[in-house]
């Protein structure tokens, strides 16, 4: 066995992140590591790569006990890692990135020619035709990802850990990546693959290990573990069943009558074409389209992040001014942005602080939200949204992605908004939390709040929405409602060429 973890245990204050986990990796296999948010995947990987020190158990590499205490030590031992966010330096050239820390030198002086030659050798067999002297940042994420893999393989060469490597790649790029991974597997590397795209896991992996709540649930060959059982392992039975029923559930036509909000001719030159939209009380509007179709841009316009050049927004009482997010919040809007880490949370502040933030901003800094009230709110939402944490004072940055998203939701819910925009609420979150978040969206609307969900996960969008708006080239090209909301119709609307389709407006 190439790599064996035995009874690995890691405890954080008050929480067992890993509880006697066993894991084995053979050379020449791709082994998927799956689990919900907070199941312990990241902790396990960080123990392997030396970011965390384990509390108990052993890590055997080629039968020898190892205790990596830094990333570079782990690398030297043979364990290389490639993360979702490419951890290379965009301001250095491709060649510099590949050879960083191992630059060929003569008398302490780096020779650029030898450096380039070395880098070219490292990239051989990856099917990349790129200029080694250009800044890495000028290439696409997919290329950067492959460069990161080439570097990890060269430096470690025994075990390669791929942590959500495909999250920001398109189909063609995923195939390119998989071809490389298969080639490396055939060269005898052991590869640990972490992903929440189950299709990809089945396409690539030989074995699957599922973690849940810090324990290993199962390790099985992927061809003998069918999808339903896999999801059951990951979620526990109840949740899986719930998700299934969720999909079949469809709200009857939304309440007719006076619209909650109407957007008329709202647009911004070169950003979003003018559009009309009437938002009804208690409905979920899904917004679909490819990347760059104007989904996020529309949301930014609605929330006043960008000024609109044309059009008006009105509610039952008259026109609304939405010149900036402050106006939008005052008008009862909420917005959970796509890039949670940079735009949504303040990672160093506690869960309590993050939840109270928007409310405090609205009251102004002179009228502090009383401490007791803050605590009550935090405790309330931690329970209602099932935020998994050791307490309300934990820094949000230490939570898993799904739980961070719940904190963002809680912040807006505390404001009691009437219109909430969620941009990719399930991005980077595992299957179990997907269902939970969708369930939450449903519950919110039951009390009259309107929600606009932007998502590239069509299944989810279809399951949750009362209406679906399809965008293409910054323009609304289709509106689907009721029984017209099917995967086929949405895909057709996205794919249709220039003819404008209006399916059941």
């Amino acid at each position, binding site marked *: 066995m190439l790599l064996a973890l035995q009874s690995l245990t890691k405890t954080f204050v008050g929480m067992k992140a890993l509880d006697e986990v066993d894991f084995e990796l053979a050379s020449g296999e791709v082994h998927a590591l799956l689990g919900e948010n907070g199941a312990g995947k990241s902790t396990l990987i960080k123990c392997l790569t030396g970011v965390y020190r384990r509390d108990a158990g052993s890590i055997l590499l080629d039968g020898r006990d190892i205790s990596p205490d*830094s*990333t570079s030590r782990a690398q030297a031992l043979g364990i290389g890692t490639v993360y979702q966010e490419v951890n*290379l330096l965009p*301001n*250095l050239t491709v060649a510099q990135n590949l050879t960083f*820390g191992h630059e060929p030198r003569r008398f302490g*002086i*780096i020779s650029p020619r030898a450096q380039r030659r070395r880098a070219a050798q490292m990239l051989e067999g990856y099917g990349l035709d790129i200029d080694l*002297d250009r800044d890495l940042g*000028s290439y696409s994420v997919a290329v950067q990802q492959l460069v990161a893999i080439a570097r990890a393989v060269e430096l470690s060469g025994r075990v390669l850990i791929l942590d959500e490597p495909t999250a920001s790649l398109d189909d063609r790029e995923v195939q390119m990546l998989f071809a490389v991974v298969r080639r490396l597997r055939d060269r005898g590397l052991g590869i640990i693959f972490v992903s929440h795209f189950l299709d990809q896991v089945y396409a690539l992996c030989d074995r699957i290990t599922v973690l849940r709540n810090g324990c290993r649930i199962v390790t099985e060959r992927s061809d003998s573990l069918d999808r339903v059982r896999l999801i059951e392992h990951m979620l526990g039975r109840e949740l899986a069943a719930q998700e299934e029923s969720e999909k079949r559930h469809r709200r009857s036509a939304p309440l007719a009558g006076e619209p909650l909000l109407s957007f008329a001719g709202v647009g911004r030159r070169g950003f979003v074409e003018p559009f009309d939209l009437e938002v009804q009380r208690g409905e979920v509007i899904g917004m679909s389209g490819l990347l760059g179709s104007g989904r996020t841009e529309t949301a930014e316009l609605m929330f006043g992040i960008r000024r609109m050049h044309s059009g008006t927004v009105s509610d039952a009482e008259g026109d609304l001014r939405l010149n900036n997010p402050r106006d939008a919040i005052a008008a009862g809007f909420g917005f959970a942005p796509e890039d949670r880490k940079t735009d949504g949370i303040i990672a160093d502040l506690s869960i309590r602080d993050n939840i109270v933030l928007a409310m405090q901003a609205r009251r102004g800094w002179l009228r502090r939200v009383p401490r007791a009230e803050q605590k009550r709110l935090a405790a309330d939402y931690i329970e209602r949204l099932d935020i998994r944490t050791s307490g309300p004072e934990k820094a949000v940055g230490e939570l898993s992605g799904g739980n961070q998203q719940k904190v963002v939701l809680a912040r807006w819910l505390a404001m009691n908004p009437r219109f909430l925009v969620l941009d990719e609420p399930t991005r980077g979150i595992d299957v179990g939390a997907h269902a939970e978040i969708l369930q939450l969206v449903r519950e919110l609307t039951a009390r009259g709040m309107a929600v606009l969900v932007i998502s590239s996960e069509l299944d989810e969008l279809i399951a949750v929405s009362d209406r679906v708006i399809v965008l293409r080239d910054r323009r609304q090209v289709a509106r689907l409602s009721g029984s017209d909301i099917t995967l086929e119709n949405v895909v057709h609307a996205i794919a249709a060429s220039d003819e404008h389709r209006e399916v059941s407006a």
Partner: protein
Amino acid sequence: MRNPRLYPLLATIAIFIIAYAICYLQFPYILSTRVAGNLLTDNAYLGIVAVGMTIVILSGGIDLSVGSVIAFSGVFIAVMLRDSGLHPLAVFALLLVITTAFGAAMGWLIYRLAMPAFIVTLAGMFLVRGVAYMMSIDSIPIDHPFFTSLQRVYWLMPGKGRLTLIGVVMLLAFVVGHIIAHRTRFGANVFALGGGEQTARLMGSRVGRTTVMIYAFSGLMAGLGGIVFALYTGSGYPLATVGTELTAIATVVIGGTLLTGGAGYVFGTLFGVLTMGLIQTYIVFDGTLSSWWTRIAIGVLLLAFIVLQKGLLRLTTARSAA
């Protein structure tokens, strides 16, 4: 040009050449080795300090202590030569050890306490200026035969221009700085730190060691700049070079280095220093302009470069998003 990272450097060189051409049209004598020699001599201490500052800024940091270190160096040399009887070379060596250790200590604090470099070096700036005052309140003339002979060393260039020792020291400092920044592992670590500390750590860079070395290098360069300044003025004065750290930062930015770190060239800074010196020379030639025009010109240039960098950043991000 295919590599956008070269744009700021090319802009710097272009501005210098254009400025020189304009000066030449008005005062043809400006294109002579005498003026060129003076340009190097007059700005030698600033250039040397700016080499250290370039490395610091490339790593995403800042060093506000260098002006005080120059003043301290002058006073230290003057006092030691007056009172101790040590040979000037021994005094120089001792001084460089002190300023390097001082820089290293600041780097260590910045890393260990995870404090902004701005605050730590600001404290260093006051501290060192205070120590200089403690040693003497007055200007002390330096009067040592070896020292004065060093002041007189120069090579005669064709056209009777004088290439002084301190001018040569500055050019050497730039060559050494260039090699360190662009041709060593330490340099690669500096760029890595400027690109992102967390990422640099994940790539196996030893961030603590690099930070200490960066500020130690800046301290070394400030000490060397101090020696050159003492040779240039022939005295030590605790009130000297107030605000030089800011001038050095300005030359680095005009030289095309990104103020947020991670991109730039050491040789760009040389052109930044020369451009600044050229403006001063122009004002001297003109004779009617107040010397404050130098400051105004620098301010405008600095602003132009910040705008240029912001524009380039937008250009490259727009391209990678497309």
